[in-house]
């Protein structure tokens, strides 16, 4: 399909132009990158634009609750070895944002596209991808009532007849169940730290047994598929048994898992693990995440954690005590307005760190930390927190809009 590009129809061309104009207006008005608004205008003019824009591309879709933006970036970097890549690198992952990103990549050969979990089945229908990477599913934004198993079921039904090669995490029972309806699956043992959304068998509702890294349902026999790729410590084991070292500038176990999955995706596109992994090393920060910035004469590392699984992975990558930790939590629309998820997060993992608390919902966090028996200081804003913190790089962990607020303040 690649290289065999079909000229866009006049209507599609008009839609792309109108979309670019709208994006420019939106940017000029200071309303962000403009990518979503441009895409929305374009899609309205030509609802089939997404499929047409993707027609000349070899596309991989990436979806998950956590890690999809980073993994999209890692795959884009890896596929760059094979040819020009277009990607929605800024994380605009709904159809309008995807349309807008693709409209900017007419010379590309590969499309690496992050897709919001809820839109995956629809986008997969529209763009006929060559590959789909499924990383994990867990609770997120409780007030939306997007039940995790319902999402898995949507994936399962929407992807059942796909011609794409599906690269899926064998260690996440919900993902495994969703992907097991697909004809061609490459299973990756990418690990799963957060297990509290997967104690019930997604197939029959029985209680899952989880000895060690394995899992199975004692009632219906649904079990962990045999992986062909595996993350093993700092290595990814390829199907031929060769262990390739994963060297990243991005911290943490979760990013090693993202790299392992990305290597498996790259192999589908003919990029060898050695080359793919070498190229992934170039990725430093993803949309400001993991960035170390200087503020008030201090180094701050900015970490985004949107849900319990994300917080758990983040705790495992920060520097140990006595590194100061600054926590910020909001509960605006994009965060989900229900803060009860704070109680799913094991904050006792922060014992020994000096802790500073800010954000719209700092009092919810204060009670949470009090009940965890931790010492902490509630601060009016990031300045007070940074000035109060003892020496050393400050690990800053924030949920979605709190992270955006922080980036605005600390100038990144």
């Amino acid at each position, binding site marked *: 399909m690649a290289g065999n590009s079909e000229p866009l129809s006049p209507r599609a061309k008009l839609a792309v132009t109108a979309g670019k104009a709208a994006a420019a207006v939106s940017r000029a008005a200071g309303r962000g990158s403009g990518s979503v608004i441009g895409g929305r205008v374009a899609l309205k003019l030509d609802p089939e634009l997404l499929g047409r824009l993707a027609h000349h591309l070899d596309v991989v879709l990436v979806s998950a609750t956590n890690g999809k933006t980073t993994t999209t970036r890692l795959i884009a970097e890896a596929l760059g070895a094979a040819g020009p890549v277009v990607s929605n690198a800024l994380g605009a992952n709904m159809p309008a944002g995807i349309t807008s990103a693709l409209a900017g990549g007419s010379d590309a050969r590969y499309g690496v596209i992050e897709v919001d979990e809820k839109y995956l089945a629809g986008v997969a229908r529209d763009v006929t991808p060559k590959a789909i990477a499924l990383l994990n599913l867990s609770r997120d934004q409780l007030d939306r009532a997007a039940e995790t198993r319902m999402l898995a079921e949507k994936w399962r039904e929407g992807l059942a007849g796909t011609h794409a090669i599906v690269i899926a995490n064998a260690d996440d029972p919900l993902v495994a169940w969703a992907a097991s309806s697909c004809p061609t699956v490459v299973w990756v043992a990418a690990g799963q730290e957060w297990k509290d959304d997967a104690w019930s068998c997604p197939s029959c509702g029985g209680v899952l047994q989880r000895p060690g890294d394995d899992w199975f349902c004692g009632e219906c026999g649904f079990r962990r598929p045999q992986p062909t790729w595996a993350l093993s410590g700092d290595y990814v084991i390829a199907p031929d048994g060769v262990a390739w070292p994963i060297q990243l500038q991005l911290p943490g176990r979760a990013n090693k898992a993202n790299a392992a999955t990305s290597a498996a995706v790259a192999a589908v596109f003919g990029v060898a693990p050695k080359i793919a992994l070498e190229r992934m090393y170039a990725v430093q920060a993803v949309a400001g995440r993991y960035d170390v910035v200087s503020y008030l004469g201090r180094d701050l590392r900015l970490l985004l954690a949107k849900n319990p699984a994300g917080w758990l992975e983040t705790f495992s990558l920060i520097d140990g005590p006595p590194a100061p930790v600054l926590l910020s939590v909001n509960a605006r629309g994009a965060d989900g307005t*229900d803060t009860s998820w704070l109680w799913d997060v094991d904050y006792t993992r922060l014992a020994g760190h000096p802790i500073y608390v800010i954000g719209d919902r700092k009092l919810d966090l*204060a009670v949470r930390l009090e*009940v965890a028996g931790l010492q902490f200081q509630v601060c009016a804003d990031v300045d007070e927190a940074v000035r109060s913190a003892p020496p050393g790089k400050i690990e800053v962990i924030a949920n979605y809009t709190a992270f955006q607020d922080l980036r605005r303040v600390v100038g990144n």
Partner: protein
Amino acid sequence: MSDTSLRLVWVYPDLLSTYGDQGNALVVERRAQQRHIPVTRIDVRSDQPIPTSGDIYLIGGGEDRPQRLAAERLRRDGGLNRAVGNGAIVFSVCAGYQILGTEFINDLGRPEPGLGILDVRSVRNEGSRHVGDIMGDIDERLGLPPLTGFENHQGNTVVGPGARPFARLRFGSGNGTGDGTEGAWCDTVFGTYAHGPVMARNPLIADMLLKLALDVHALPPVDEQWYEALRAERIAAATQASA
């Protein structure tokens, strides 16, 4: 109390712990420990029998399918009903609250029998989901300050003659029946739609359960600074949101 330590049973965290429900267990534990009351927490997965010798049972909220599975398994097990027969204290939230009643509508749209240990009956609200901060006055017989919580459910629950509403709301939907009632209680069995979790926002509910379990009228004070600050903020937010 059955022996020297208070037995706190958390029912089916594998099915009914979607909305930070562990928080209620953590707050009860913490406030007991601050009073030097030894606590043993027992988390019971849905493939394990419910112990009948617990002092306080907590049962939380969950999604529609796990709620049906939990009801099926609790009925089959019978342990929670026996514990209540022995005088145990039960505090339930949302999906767990509905399960304690006589009947609710399950994920398949069919009536599902509950455990019948609280005289309430739930149906599915046909309108939009009840989501947001709630605030109201708890039944004066319980001697508790105003209730603050966060509701997030699609249920409408009618309180029968064998139970009393837990609270009357000034803001929020609560039982969703339009009469301002929220939750229900009878003797030592309590139910509410309030998340938050409800004990984090209303720590004196946790103290009430401890006092019932220990059969005492008062407990030594603990530092309420952050709880009080959070309560004040959330009560103001609920008031503002509905103004």
